[in-house]
């Protein structure tokens, strides 16, 4: 568990009950009626039950527009920029949004400034681990898609390979 999540849990715990109570009063959603799954059927099953999520959706109180919940986020690890040899920011997991179809760009007729109807187009959030990112997305109540990172496969390299004897006909004339 990351430092962040420990801290966040500690921060959230006192408010948890309050937000639940609030939601049941104001919206009378089923959130307050949710009971832990009753194990009425004790028959052994091949299918593992879906574990109860330990997060409470934050958008009940966050004030985020409801439309945001209809947009899936992608959780992925950005690959290295091939223009550079540095690998900074590669370890992070990033959340960002697909573009809003039809929410394109709009140009201010007076100044020519460009703006967009897509309120998430400039937002991207970085996390230390995939689990942190998933936790955050779940807490916000967003649908997410996790893109697994590709496996890296760089064989051991050796300077002496330049001078290794090849038994067959020479296949490369090095011009370096």
């Amino acid at each position, binding site marked *: 568990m*990351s*430092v*962040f999540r420990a*801290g*966040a849990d500690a921060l959230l715990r006192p408010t948890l009950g309050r937000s639940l109570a609030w939601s049941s009063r104001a919206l009378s959603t089923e959130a307050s009626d949710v009971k832990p799954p009753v194990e009425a059927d004790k028959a052994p099953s091949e299918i593992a039950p879906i574990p109860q999520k330990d997060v409470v959706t934050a958008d009940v109180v966050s004030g985020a527009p409801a439309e945001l919940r209809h947009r899936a986020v*992608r959780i*992925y690890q*950005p*690959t*290295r*920029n*091939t*223009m*550079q*040899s*540095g*690998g*900074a*920011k*590669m*370890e*992070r*997991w990033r959340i960002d949004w*697909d*573009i*809003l*179809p*039809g*929410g*394109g*760009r709009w140009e201010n007729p007076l100044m020519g400034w460009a703006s967009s109807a897509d309120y998430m187009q400039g937002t991207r*959030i*970085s*996390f*230390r681990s995939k689990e*942190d990112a998933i936790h*955050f997305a779940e807490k916000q109540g967003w649908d997410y*898609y996790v*893109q*697994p990172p*590709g*496996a*890296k*496969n*760089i*064989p*051991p*390299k*050796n*300077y*002496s*390979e*330049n001078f290794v004897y090849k038994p*067959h006909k020479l*296949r*490369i*004339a*090095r*011009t*370096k």
Partner: protein
Amino acid sequence: MLRLVSAASKPSSAGRLSRVVCSNCSATIGRRTLASTSARSADITLTVDGKEVTVPQGSALIQACEAAGATIPRFCYHDRLAIAGNCRMCLVEVERSPKPVASCAMPAMPGSKVFTNTPLVHEAREGVMEFLLANHPLDCPICDQGGECDLQDQSMRYGSDRSRFHEVYGKRAVENKDLGPLVKTSMNRCIQCTRCVRFANEVAGVEDLGTTGRGNDLQIGMYVEKMMDSELSGNVVDLCPVGALTSKPYAFHARPWELKNTESVDVLDALGSNIRIDSRGVQVMRIQPRTNDAVNEEWISDKARYAYDGLKFQRLTTPLVKDGDRFVPATWEAALQAVADGLKRSGATGDEIQAVAGQLADTEALVALKDLVNRLGSDNTALDGGRGAAPPVAGVDVRANFLLNATIPGVERADAILLVGTNPRHEAAVLNSRIRKSWLHTGLEVGLIGARADTAYGYEYLGDGARALADFVAGKGTFAKTFQAAKRPLIIIGSAVAEQEDGPAVYNALAKFVEKNKERMLTPEWNGFAVLQRAASHAAAYEIGFVPSKHAAATRPKFVYLLNADEVDPAAISPDAFVVYQGHHGDLGAQLADVCLPAAAYTEKGMTWVNTEGRVQLGRAAVPPPGAAREDWKIIRALSEVLGVTLPYDDVLAVRDRMWELSPTLVRYDVTEPTSVGVARAGLGVLAEATKSTKVSGAPLARPIANFYQTDPISRASVTMAQCTRAFVRGEDYDDAARATEAAFG
């Protein structure tokens, strides 16, 4: 809350360490060693900055340092190129070594103690940097590499703020070279890391890019005035750590920090190379490769990289309805109604309703269109180009019959490859570099049947058609004997073979040959029967069965729905047929149409693509589609409602559920699902049975791609690709005006 998160998301080196170590272990299991007791290469342990790290034996010291999480500055070392050891930037201190050592050229030794962060190391690197900067122009404000320049980055730490060099003659001056319409050179900036030379030598197979002179006079060039003629030449722009080689079409267009990066998939060939689309506003500014060892390593072809400017021209932005002989812009409602009226007017019923899918159709659209056409009572779903209107020779019931079963990384494991009717250099340029890599570093032997081609590796030419194949199957010739002795033989069949007169005969001979040699060619680990597709949509189309039935193929269609289909033969469409074109470019298909429906191009929709090995990858939208254009499956869904056969999906997730019903592999991303030996054999049996009565005519197998740079509506609309065609295909002067301007700035 957000601030908390970003503060907590510092990169940790532990993840990288474990990953590198593990992947290296798995990669070296197959290495042959002299020891007879164990085939496994040993791991060695050393200490880097007080941290113990284990790497496979034979690794360079720089790899060990990386595995330990220590960042080593470098210019000449690159993971995918041979080690040169000439920039000296990666100096580290090793215990009991009198001098700092270049960590890229030094093998990692067990038990050695390495320090990467000592005053000695810093001083040594500062010295190296001082020499590099002595001859480097102060171009940064006008240099295209600015913002992603290794020299700029590393001089922030190791550079001095003033120079001790005051040469009478000033800095070294080198003439710029003309490497063609893609790579812009500014040779004053070159630091002679020779990455471009090594790339051209090893990967691209351009063996005349090299160095001349020594010391201060060393220059990179082609020795004579010549362009760099390679399908992978754009990659030297990425490799160049400074601004000596930059992208010509992108010159002075944007800075890297202005760009939004979107990780997506390329569709201009069937490899599904991973790309990163860099966009600003509504424009794609450039396309970069995205590292994926399972597909494209770190390279992409020039078409994938530079055809993006075609996305700006010839676009269909609004629905068009033909009125007399001209197109009139219409609303979506009117256009869809026009399609419905046209269908009614044409009187098409059953198989007379034809859907034709082109190279750039995405999987969701294919599924939706097939569902729509089937609901209208037709089985006539065809592909454009070649013999797409007929049922395919290899059949679509078994996926092993139309996929590259050996997988793209698996091609490197083959020890004998027979290419039949294909030139991978044009049909899958990045795959070709893998074959070259294997050919250089192992004893791989390659044979070719079909039109002679300049592949980037040597091959034995067996003949031009089915007769030569018959000789090969009979075991005549030296290559046939090599092939018989090979442990992992591989036959790569070009997608064009099925479109030719002798196609069925070739398939028949090969299916029988594979069956005969099944103990080597069809094992649980190895499937040596591989079909190389060249169109991004075809593997997906076959996967979902987007092929006509025999009865449907014989019907003359009265209503034709072209989905991105631009390779259609206009003569094949009867003049009284009602034609609808759905696509993003006003190319051939749109000319034939009665109604044009504007759709999104691949950079504008996040859709599923299946590559030639059956790997399903999810693209991503980078920019919104222009004008009234919409995503393809949505158009088809809307049309279905107007036609009164509403398709049962309302969002893309529901479409993907439908895809899962058709083939569960279509929602398993980034993996290849191997076909079991039994099923693959059954598939080949069906193939051999279906083609058994064909006769060999002896006609040569023609090559499908004459001009690599223009194969689809996007690259045909691209100015850069037109320049490449002039420069590399026709050998003309590609851009007189630009050269005159450049000469003026000299």
